[in-house]
């Protein structure tokens, strides 16, 4: 039984050796001549300015969360829609419940003002 997983183990081993090998050999082989410019953090050629911990408006997160919710809804709806006639009424009922729960979520978000940008 464990023989079936041997190729996965081999692949895992090869990828680890490959990744480590590239880092280690290039570290051994390359010449090191550090200059202040080279030691600087890389920010597309500019001198880095300011903190990277910028604060975004919470609305971006609202949009992202709504997107994920409805994206997932699509993922569940499509397989059902493809097989709708074979699955019959119980699947239709289950899907209706699923969609109505999400619809209630949407109504809540709308009422709460989550869809307004200002």
């Amino acid at each position, binding site marked *: 039984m464990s023989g079936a997983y041997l190729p996965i183990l081999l692949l895992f081993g090869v990828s680890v050796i490959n990744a480590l090998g590239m880092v280690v050999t290039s570290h051994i082989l390359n010449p090191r001549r550090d200059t202040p410019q080279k030691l600087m953090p890389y920010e597309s050629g500019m001198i880095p300015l300011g903190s990277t911990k910028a604060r975004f408006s919470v609305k971006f997160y609202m949009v992202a969360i709504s997107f994920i919710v409805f994206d997932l809804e699509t993922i569940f709806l499509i397989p059902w829609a493809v097989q709708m006639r074979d699955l019959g009424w119980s699947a239709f009922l289950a899907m209706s419940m699923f969609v109505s*729960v999400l619809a209630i979520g949407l109504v*809540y978000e709308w*009422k709460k003002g989550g869809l307004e940008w200002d």
Partner: protein
Amino acid sequence: MELDFSRQLHYFWALMPEMILCVWGMVVLLAGVSGKHKDPETASSGDPSFGGGADLGWLALVGVLLAGMANGWLYGVEEVGRSSMIALDGFRLFANWVFLLAAALAIMISFAYVYRQRLQAGEFYGLILLSTAGMMFMAGARDLIVIFLGLEVMSIAVYALTAFNRRDRKSAEAGLKYFLLGAFATGFFLYGIALVYGATGSTNIFEIGQTVSSGGASSTLLTIGIAFLTIGFGFKVSAVPFHMWTPDVYEGAPAPVTAFMSAAVKAAAFVAFLRVFMVGFDGAYDTWYPIMWWLAALTMVAANLMALVQSNVKRMLAYSSVAHAGYLLVAITASNEAGAAGLLFYLLIYTVMNMGAFAIVIGVAHQAEERLQVEDYAGFGWAQPMMGVLLTVFLLSLAGFPGTGGFMGKIYLLQAAADAQLWYLMVVLVLSTIASYWYYLRVAWFMWMKRQLADDQHDMVIIPVPMRIALIASVAIVIYMGFFPGAALDFARESVEGLASLGGAMPGLGE
């Protein structure tokens, strides 16, 4: 009515209380954003028992009542066979009563708190209902996957409730801490399910039990799986090596949420814990019994020792709740029907007395997060005799003083331990209980033996009507159980009858 689960529709009937709570949770949520509740900052006006979001609280209580009616109706419903994912047995229904009682009490003690802290009432009460539905899924699950689903429904709602007071840094910190550690523990739990499935070929607890008892399971995989599930459950019930989150989270969370978490969330985790280990892993008892023994002993000793040095009452009650998890772990270690009945009985008592104690703590804290030090209770008993007496009763019951429900609960846990011949564990339980008297009675001593720091120190303590109802109900149950535990105990015993038996009901596998 009979349900054989061959038709999908029968699951709807079997899950009626859960369905009602889920739907009602959404109703409360929507009611909270409609019309006059739209802005909680300005909507708070008038009497906290009836105005300012309290109508949503009463609405949520109606939902709890409806779910309770559905739960009572399920007593008249029989299931055919035991292969379904949802169990329809007394064990589940008794546990559901405990959750519904905890939810109702939590809602009733939140009214003034939600009002004073300007929390968003619709979301607050809605989340309590949704997490209660998750707990009921856990209690009714006969499949590890359903337990996992219930665990997540419950936990995610409670994470949000923990961080609910968004103006309070401590609440946010507690929420984040609980969320991160909880997600970590969930990972362990899920990995445990996967390993048990690998060892036994099933996620159905009943089938796992049959495979394990007949020795058909791969023992290494099964042992690791049991260990991982123990870690997952141990985190949720806050057993001692996994309890580190408990004091911080319980201290930071809004006080009514802390009360709800320490009673109901813990009860749900324990009920699922017991069913998985007593039914599913009964055949591997020798493997997990030493682990559970040490967990129970460590939890009782360490939690009680740490509670001794707390000066913050909320934090002290958090350690006390860890200690009570230790007492309940004794019932799981015993793993017999007396233990299961004792666990249910104790959970009922613990819910009531813990909610009662927290209600008065919330009152003394002015429905907020202030005045939580034990010194703030100086002279409270003489200034507000009624509340002082009630808190004293709850503290004595938590300590396990004769004449209170807590004492009877401990007696039946001891009895279960004696049936399983866990003599040393019994000694640990009794000794740690005696140690716990010190920190419970210290609060009582401050209340009755110390002078007030200022004459008007306790004048601001206001107990609104719903909280009064909750307190009176709690104290009545605590005292009644202390003197006449018979009826409730018989009910618990009937509820667990046949819980652990694996034979017979499965077709083709008869005894």
